[in-house]
């Protein structure tokens, strides 16, 4: 009797394309994280415990540097024009939230002036950006 020889199969997971997939994902994450880095973002935010998450896509960014320099959606603007710019945005989308990124060292008078302009421009909600600080 002829005994049939068993054919051995070596199971292999094809991993040749793994590097391509990884590189693709890598390039995607690299490019999106580069987009998130903001120009002139030399703002050191104050710490707070009660902070809630800011939804960046629904917010208008107003930042104030330590010397009181104001930026509207990352473009430098004079302090006096913030109200007009905000009013223009609200005319198109009334429900927008204004996110204020002010430096921890900025004198409050500058922040108060910006807040007054937000109020005049009928901003319904403002969120004061902070860094997370563990509860004490």
């Amino acid at each position, binding site marked *: 009797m002829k005994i049939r020889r068993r054919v051995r199969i070596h199971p292999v997971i094809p*991993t040749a394309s*793994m*590097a391509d997939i*990884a*590189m693709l*994902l*890598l390039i995607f*994450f*690299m490019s*999106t*994280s580069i987009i*998130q880095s903001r120009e002139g973002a030399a703002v050191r935010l*104050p*710490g*707070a*415990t*009660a*902070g*809630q*998450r*800011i939804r*960046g896509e629904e917010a208008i960014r107003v930042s*104030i540097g330590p010397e009181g320099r104001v930026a509207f959606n990352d473009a430098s603007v004079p302090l006096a024009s913030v109200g007009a710019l905000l009013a223009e945005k609200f005319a198109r989308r009334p429900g927008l*939230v204004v*996110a*204020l990124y*002010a*430096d*921890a*060292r*900025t*004198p*409050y*008078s500058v*922040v*108060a002036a910006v*807040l007054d302009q*937000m*109020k*005049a421009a*009928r*901003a*319904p*909600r*403002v*969120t*004061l*950006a*902070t*860094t*997370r*600080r563990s509860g*004490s």
Partner: protein
Amino acid sequence: MKIARRRSSNPEIPLVSTSDVAFLLLIFFLSTAALNVERGLLLDLPRAGDVPAEIAASRLVTVEVAADGAFSLDGKTLTSDGLRAALSARVAAVPNAVVRILIAPAAPYRAFVTALDQVKLSGARELSLETGAGA
């Protein structure tokens, strides 16, 4: 004469570890992107047409922020931790308490945010911001 045969070598770039490196970088970018969540203290601003509300003096709890960033509650100087404890007690004792934050214009924004943070943590629902006298 014996002519030596040329050995043809196949030049190759070793690519075995590329996927490992790529995954390592991928995990790094993923983790840093997840950490990049922005947070903030949310304030509902008064509407433009709102009539300024009259608040009874008995409902007012006044927090003062001095130009040097020092805090005081109803005239008593406190640290930021002490402020929260004292505020929580005051807010719990006064029904419908309205916290009034009186900030010196020269006070650093950090001090204002700390005071606001403590007010939020104390459970106060209504807030009044006021800029103090002096330039």
